[in-house]
Structures are given as C-alpha cells and as structure tokens.
C-alpha cells in the first residue's frame, strides 16, 4: 500500500491535539454549559404542523387569545414554513395541553405534538446513562484484560471516554440542543469506539506473537504495521457507518437530527482515537514496561 504515514512517530501531535480539545471542551462546558433541551429543564414544547404556511404572529395571537401566550414568537421550520415550534417555560397542565391541542386542531387541521417535562427525569436519565457507561467500562476492562492485556484495556477505556467527551464538547461549542436521544447517540459511540479499538488491538496482539520485542523501535514497528494493516478496514467501516449517519442526518426525521449529528462527530473521533490515541497510549505504556524489565535504560532509548 502506498499510504505510509507514521502514526507512532507523530503520536505527540495527537496527544497535544486531543489535550487541547479536551481543555477547550472543559472551558466551554464551564463557561457556556450545554444547550439543554426541555428534556433537562422544566418546561413545555409543542410542534405545530399546518397544510399551508404558518404566520408566527398569527399563531402567537391565537394562543394568546386562549390564555396560552408563548414565551417567544414561535420558530418556523420546514417547507414553506409549514411547521412551527412553540416553547413555554412552565409545565403546561393537562387541561392547558387539551386546550392547546383543540385550538391548534381547529385552526390548522392537524393535531400538534406537545411535550412537557420536569427536569428530574432528564437528569435522572443522564445520571443513569453515566453510571451505565462506568459499569460497562469496568466490564470491558475485565474482558479485555483477560482476552488481551490490562494495558490495552486501560487504553481502550481512555479512548472510549475520550470519544464520549468529544461529542459533549462539540455540542457545547456549537450550542446544539441536547435532548434525550443525545444520550442514546453517546452510548452508540461508546459501543462503536470500543469495537473499533478492539479490532486494532487484535492485530497488535497477533503481530506481537510473531515478533520478538527487543527494544522500543521494534515495538513501534509492530504498532505501525498493525495500524497500517487495519487502516483500510477502519476507514471502510467508518465510511459505511458514516453514510448511514449522514443519510439519517439529511433525510431523516427532524426529531433525530441532533442524534445523527452526534453520531457523525462521535464516529469521526471513534476512528481517530483507536489509531491515534488508544494504540499510541498503549505503545507509550508498553515501552515503559519494557524499559523497566530490561534494566538497561540506555538500550531502549530510540
């Protein structure tokens, strides 16, 4: 193959790159936080669909006349502005929702969608997801530690958390709305990331058996070859999954649009982290282990 970029040699660039993004991500989270949808903040959200284009002022006035004045002028979307979303900072009661539905149905002919939420549920779900990821991580460490080796398990987990955090960071940067499907997207990426990393590690494991590791250079060679051998697979696989994610993004329903964007970002980072973070971290740690074992510091220096 003609492609021969030396990932091992440039590992510091990747470490610096990921560190910068991580720091920026933390800063962004601290300063801007996440753009939490109503799934995490108390309130109500309604989607209206009409057969003809909607006039936002008109819609607002109509709702006002039945005592359901929206917080802001409704946001229009869709072809010819046939869709509108209306937000309330308070949780609408059952009767208010009924009134909303009847009013809209009379005016526009179709039944609107209305969601209300108290922040407890969203937060609980997020916490639940976080705990699940941590438990899953322990499980993965045990499995990968047994089937592969402990250092690989550790590197895989770091790559996994890296990917999950990157999605959260990018969503914070871009002020994209975080809703309940976002959690599902992050979880998918966790699954994908581990899958991708294992495939690369599997090849390293196989090549390690074939090679006698004398020094750091030989080790670097093994990592380099393993990445090179699995690179086509990594790229092709991520391409096919990306195609699916992009198709959902562009053509899919509006309610899973952010889900698709989160997947897209996560998939990119998932491939990047397997090659540029997980494998490289393992290399650094393994080289140190090697150095300790050899008792000859001069020998293992590159």
């Amino acid at each position, binding site marked *: 193959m003609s492609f021969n970029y030396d990932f091992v040699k440039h590992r510091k660039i990747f470490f610096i790159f990921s560190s910068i993004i991580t720091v920026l991500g933390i800063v962004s989270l601290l300063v801007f936080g996440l753009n939490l949808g109503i799934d995490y903040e108390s309130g109500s959200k309604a*989607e209206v*669909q009409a057969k003809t284009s909607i006039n936002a002022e008109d819609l607002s006035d109509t709702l006002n006349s039945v005592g359901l004045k929206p917080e802001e002028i409704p946001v229009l979307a869709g072809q010819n502005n046939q869709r509108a979303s209306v937000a309330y900072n308070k949780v609408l009661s*059952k009767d208010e*929702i009924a009134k909303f*539905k009847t009013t809209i149905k009379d005016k526009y002919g*179709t*039944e609107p*969608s*209305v969601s*209300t*939420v*108290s922040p*407890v*549920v969203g937060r*609980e*779900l997020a916490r*639940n*997801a976080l*705990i*699940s990821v941590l*438990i*899953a991580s322990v*499980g*993965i460490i045990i*499995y*990968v530690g047994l089937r592969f080796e402990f250092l690989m398990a550790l590197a895989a987990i770091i790559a996994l958390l890296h990917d999950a955090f990157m999605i959260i960071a990018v969503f914070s940067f871009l002020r994209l709305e975080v809703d*309940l*499907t976002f959690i*599902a997207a992050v*979880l*998918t990426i966790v*699954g*994908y990331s*581990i*899958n991708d990393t*294992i*495939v690369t590690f599997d090849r390293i494991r*196989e090549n390690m058996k074939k090679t006698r590791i004398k020094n750091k250079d030989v080790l670097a060679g093994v990592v380099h070859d393993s990445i090179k051998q*699995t690179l*086509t*697979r990594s790229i*092709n*696989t991520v*391409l*096919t*999954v990306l*195609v*699916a*994610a*992009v*198709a*959902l993004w562009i*053509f*899919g*329903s*509006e*309610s*899973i649009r952010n*889900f*698709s964007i989160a997947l897209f970002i996560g998939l990119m980072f998932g491939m990047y982290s397997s090659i540029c973070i997980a494998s490289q971290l393992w290399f650094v740690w393994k080289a140190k282990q090697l150095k300790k074992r050899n008792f000859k510091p001069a020998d293992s220096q590159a």
Partner: protein
Amino acid sequence: MVKKNRIATFILILAAFAVLIGFTTPQIVKNIKLGLDLQGGFEVLYQVKPAKKGQKIDNDVLKSAVQALDRRVNVLGVSEPNITIEGKDRIRVQLAGVKDQNNARKLLSTKAQLTFRDVNDKVLLDGSDLKGGGSKVTYNQQNQPIVQLTLKDGDKFGEVTKKVMNMGPGQNQLVIWLDYEKGDSYKAEAGKKDPKFISAPSVNSVLDQKQVVIEGRFTQEEAQNLADILNAGALPVKLKEVYSTSVGAKFGEQALHDTIYAGFIGVAIIFLFMLLYYRIPGLVAVITLSIYIYLILLIFDWMNGVLTLPGIAALILGVGMAVDANIITYERIKEELRSGKSVMSAFKAGNRRSFTTIFDANITTILAAGVLFAYGTSSVKGFALVLIISVLASFITAVYGSRVFLGLLVKSRWLDKKPGYFGVKESEISEL
C-alpha cells in the same frame, strides 16, 4: 474446471431466500408494532402519590394502580397499551394510536372517586359501596342518557335516603360528586351555571333499592365515559404527571416516512460501495446484509417489540456495523491473496483469522449494550435492545452466512486465479 453444481447450489439458496423474503416481509412489516413516535399517541410518566393520608406506596399498591389503569385503557380501546412501573413510585403509560388524546388523558388520571354527600358535604356513600361492573348507560323518559349504578347493599341506600329526606325541604338534596376535592362545597357550587358536582336530586321518599340512576345533563359520550370509568374502578392512588409527550398522528407518519426514506438511501449507498470495492465478496455482503435486515425484522416481530424512532436509527446503524464484520473478513482475504496464496487457501485463512477479531469486537459491544439494557430506561432500553439484536444477527449473517455463500463460489473453482474479482490487482501480489 468449474464445478457447476456449487454455483447451482448458490443460486438455489439465493432464490430460496429471495422467495422467502419477498413473500413474508410484507406480513412481518405489517405485524410490527410502531411506537407512539411513529404513529402518534402519547406517553405520560406519573408520580404516584398516596390517595389518603398515611397510605404507603409499595409494590402492591403500584401493581393495583397499574391494573386499574389497564382497565381504563381497555375502555379506550387502545390495542397495545404499555403500562409499566418505573423505579419506586412511578408509572409510565404509553398509548400509541389513540384517536382522542385529550379525552384519553382525562380518563386516565381522574381518580374516579364517586361520592354521595349531603348539602353540608358530609360523605354518605362512596365508591366502595358500588358493585364492580354494575354501571351502565340507560335513558330516561325524555330519552336523555343517564347512568345507572348498582349498589352492594340496598338497605344502606334506604338509610341514606331516609336521612336526607328528614333534613327537610331545601336541605334534602343528595349531592353526587366525582373527584370531590378538599375545599369544594355544595353551597358554593350550587348557584353556579356549571357546578363541579354531577347532580343534586331532591329526595322525597325512602328508596330501599340497589339500582340508582344519576341524571346529570350528560351527552351520550359523557354518560358512557362515566359508566365505564366507574366499572373500571377507582384508582387506589393519586397520579401526578411528571413528564408527558404527545405526538400528533401526522408527525408520527412523517417521522416514519422520513426515517425509512433515509434508511433506504443509506443502505443503498452502503450496498453500492461494497459492490464497487469488494466485487464478488461485496455481492455476497449485499446478500447477507439483506438477510440480516430481514432477520432483524423477524426477531423483532417474534419478540413483540415496539419499533420506535431511535430503534429504526439503531437498525440502520446496525447495518453499518454489520458491514464491519464483512469488511474485516474481506480485507483479511485480500491480504492473504496479496501474500501470494491461492483463492481457496486465502478464503480459508481469511475466515479463520478474522473470526477472533470479529468475536472479540462483538462481545465487547454486546457487553456495553447489555449494561445499557439493564440500567437504561425507556428509550435507551429500546435502543440497547435493537443494538444487541443487531450485533447477534450480524454475527450470524456476516460471519456464517458470508462463509456459506462465498464458500460455495470459491469451492466451485470459478474464482480461481481471479484475484481481480476480490478487488486485488495482479501487481499487488507478491511471489511466494
């Protein structure tokens, strides 16, 4: 020498699958239940609160509340209600395809506590005096709908009516309330045009009977609802809405349409890519992926799963992930071909060596998805389930299915010395 019988077997199996898939898919797709986000409907998460002071909310109370809700939902005629207990004090109700959402919601959360009181709001009879299932709609002389109740004990009603009658003219009303709340009073409501109580007939004689009728200016529908709800029984608890989401039927329809359309495009591009990049193995991948999608739908149907929007997304993603197993194998075969092996031995070595990779990668993914399934709630759970099914199905089709199909072609010797059919150029092959 090409062994034609292997190729014939290949075509035969392929044809068998094509017929099977072609004939049974429409029925399977029809059977699969759609979530409320795909057909309209609503979901409410209730917090369960004690109906009386000192009542403890334990598992038995939750269960009986779910049963009561279930009976009410049956009144609505929803085909696939989903009522589940969540955590220690929550109940999630999912009703897909409800026509009148407003009415359904009202029907669900009303406590349905019927009380008969005197003008001073003192309770004389309550829901516990009613005979279960004894309420029905009848008509009075003016042909107006009225609700007829059956009491457990006719003598008790006699005592009650006697008591009310003895309170004298102007005071002898038997006030019938549904969901009387603290602070409500007959005297405050009596003058209003639209009082909170249902009716307040005057009692002029002692009635020793079990049958009681309520006349309350009902419409036919209101009367029917009241009778149904009384039959379904009162809720043993108070329900507070914590979270609710309702999707208009039109929105659901559109979401389903858009997402399936997106899925077709995504899958079509993946198929095209596999064909162009991997040639003959790519063709096998297209076949096994089609079987994979079919299998997922079939399993979903068997499991009585409810397909939701995130579920479809997981399904489409699953296709992308299933492709991975194919790609790992084919890349491995190509590597073996490049090292100078014959097609036959490259196929065998490629299969063997890629197996552990795919196995370990899939096990770790299932591990992660399993934890999500165990700990996740509602939509996360559904998503995890589809992911687990996807990984298992992809393992069967992409590993074993691919072996059978590609194996037949390889063993027919038709592909011998044709590395180009695997997407490997002659110039890349090193001499052994």
